[in-house]
């Protein structure tokens, strides 16, 4: 891991974070030593398959890891210059919503079905503002207007079931942004939406970001969303970030075999492919991780070294590094056009 200097515009810095879940049968290493930083106004994409620790990372940042089984065992989360892991639960209440907030995947389940939209918005606004009823109402209307909900005055009295999926997700966004946090974690916010609605939502997030300088952590499994939204990318595999860098570096010169394979296994909209590369096997269980590199059993470039120790991190470009023994300090990068995937089998 490269040492991350706390630059003046860094809003969030995560150092060697480890979140484990302790069960009777085993210890699940959901997040196992990840480091990254986030600047103001920047979008960081965290990509990975299900069970790689993306969502646990997000919950750790909010200190909402399910208790008592889950625990942050090590590391630092420096938000606006303060390590939130040192804060008490009372102090955390001032952090959540005001400094860092979250948009969840499914708006159907993240909104309460028995309260109106206006009620739920005012509850969120009430964290930061204690004012009389009419000014709270106008704040709620403003919040809805910001996320492009048409006729917000009338929408306030609607219940969630009266709104479409796209509208509901806008309301969730409005609630998340109601206390003007500096960081928003968006955990697969558009997977439940239709494609044309997804595009509307992604564009809206970009607009709000350009206006307010919000920093967004985008958690997704979809490289398309990353390409559309993110400035930087961190690729996670089995609890660790195996490669991170500028979005163009990751897409044009992916270094880690897993990143390369993942990008190659996605069908392309823009060109026809005769045969997709496919990665054999499945990710390891987080409760039973192999020694050494976690991708080794599925890796086409595997060597003995890979099974012995976890690879060290190689700096490839400014801010672009990957954990792989096959790389060395003189790596020049393979443009994706020339990168010929090893012949895969469909099994």
């Amino acid at each position: 891991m490269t040492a991350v200097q706390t630059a003046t515009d860094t809003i969030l810095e995560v150092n060697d974070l480890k979140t484990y879940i302790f069960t009777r049968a085993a210890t699940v290493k959901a997040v196992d030593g990840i480091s990254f930083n986030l600047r103001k106004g920047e979008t960081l994409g965290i990509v990975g398959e299900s069970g790689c620790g993306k969502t646990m990372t997000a919950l750790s940042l909010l200190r909402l890891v399910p208790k008592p089984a889950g625990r942050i065992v090590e590391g630092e989360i420096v938000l606006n210059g303060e390590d939130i892991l040192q804060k008490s639960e009372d102090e955390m209440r001032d952090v959540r919503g005001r400094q860092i907030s979250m948009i969840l995947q499914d708006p159907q389940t993240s909104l309460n079905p028995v309260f109106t939209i206006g009620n739920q918005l005012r509850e969120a606004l009430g964290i930061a503002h204690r004012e009389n009823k009419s000014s709270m109402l106008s704040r709620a209307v403003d919040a809805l207007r910001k996320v492009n909900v048409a006729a917000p005055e009338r929408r306030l009295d609607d219940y969630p079931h009266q709104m479409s999926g796209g509208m509901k997700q806008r309301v969730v966004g409005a609630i998340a942004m109601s206390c003007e946090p500096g960081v928003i974690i968006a955990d697969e916010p558009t997977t439940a939406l239709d494609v044309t609605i997804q595009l509307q939502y992604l564009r809206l997030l970009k607009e709000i970001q350009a206006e307010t300088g919000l920093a967004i952590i985008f958690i997704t499994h979809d490289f398309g969303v990353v390409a559309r939204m993110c400035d930087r990318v961190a690729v996670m595999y089995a609890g660790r970030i195996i490669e991170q860098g500028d979005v163009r570096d990751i897409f044009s010169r992916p270094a880690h075999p897993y990143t390369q394979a993942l990008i190659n296994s996605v069908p392309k909209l823009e060109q026809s492919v005769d045969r997709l590369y496919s990665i054999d096997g499945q990710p390891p269980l987080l409760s039973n991780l192999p020694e050494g590199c976690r991708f080794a059993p599925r890796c086409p470039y595997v060597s003995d070294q890979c099974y012995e120790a976890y690879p060290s991190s190689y700096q490839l470009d400014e801010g672009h590094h990957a954990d792989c023994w096959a790389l060395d300090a003189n790596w020049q990068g393979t443009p994706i056009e020339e990168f010929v995937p090893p012949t895969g089998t469909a099994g």
Partner: protein
Amino acid sequence: MAVATNNDALLEVRNLKKYFPVTKGLVLMKTIGYVQAVDGISFSIKQGETVGLVGESGCGKTTTSKLLLRLENPTEGDILLEGRDINTFRGAELQDYRTTVQAVFQDPWSSLSPRMRVRDIVSEPLVVNRNVTTQEKNERVAEVLQQVGLHAQQATNYPHEFSGGQRQRIAVASALVSYPKLIVLDEPVSALDVSIRAQVMNLLKDLQEQYNVSYLLIAHNLATVRYMAHETAVMYLGQIVEYAETEELYNNALHPYTRALFSAALPSHPDLIREDIVLQGEVPSPINPPSGCRFHPRCPFAMPQCSEEAPVEKEVSPGHRVSCHLY
């Protein structure tokens, strides 16, 4: 909209309509309207080829697949399998049809019965519709399990012992066991993990070659359809707005809705972001679809005639049909 009878077509759909009544009242039910889920679609599927059906939720993709599987009866129109209307099938003919047309659904967690062993799940189409001995059944199951990349010994396991990708392989095996001519794939990979999707898509392509089976692929991901389908139909509010060979459609999309879908599809590289049409608003209700062209309220090129007159389908180049007043 009459389509010339295609001799090499395995399945032909002609002017198919399905309206669901919307009722009011409990005792004296009054029909107050119809959901026009599928409203006059025509297409055909050739032997050994894949037709992709794309569109947003509520556009009628799933209703179309149910009509093809004879889980719903059409309000109007015909579905011809090798020239014979499937809605006239009764008794033995219908049983035979049920083994000829199979389906693979989206979610392998809910489509496989947790109480049945893999052998029973896979062999069900054979047992229910055909007379087979236990030995024949077991041999066929072992064979088909190997073809989808599982072990014959795994036939005695239960679905919970498998991962998502393996479960989808079981579902594919079950669809293949009776040597069907057509398989309806309803979002076959969207519930799977990214690295597993390619495995299943490649498997489906290989099996198509091996069995010469046709697929009707229902998907919302345009890139998946491009990879899998030979021909693609774009649906909007129960109608096919554009139909062409996949490569033609992806290189030369004409209908504003198709172009909007392409704009909304996510790029495979940050330098390939192209958004020429960004749609506002949402898909209107199919109970009261807009007059004229159903897309006109959202269409950036809408002209006065679009709200008055429904566009007639035109063949702009061989095999490329589009319903739009612009062409």
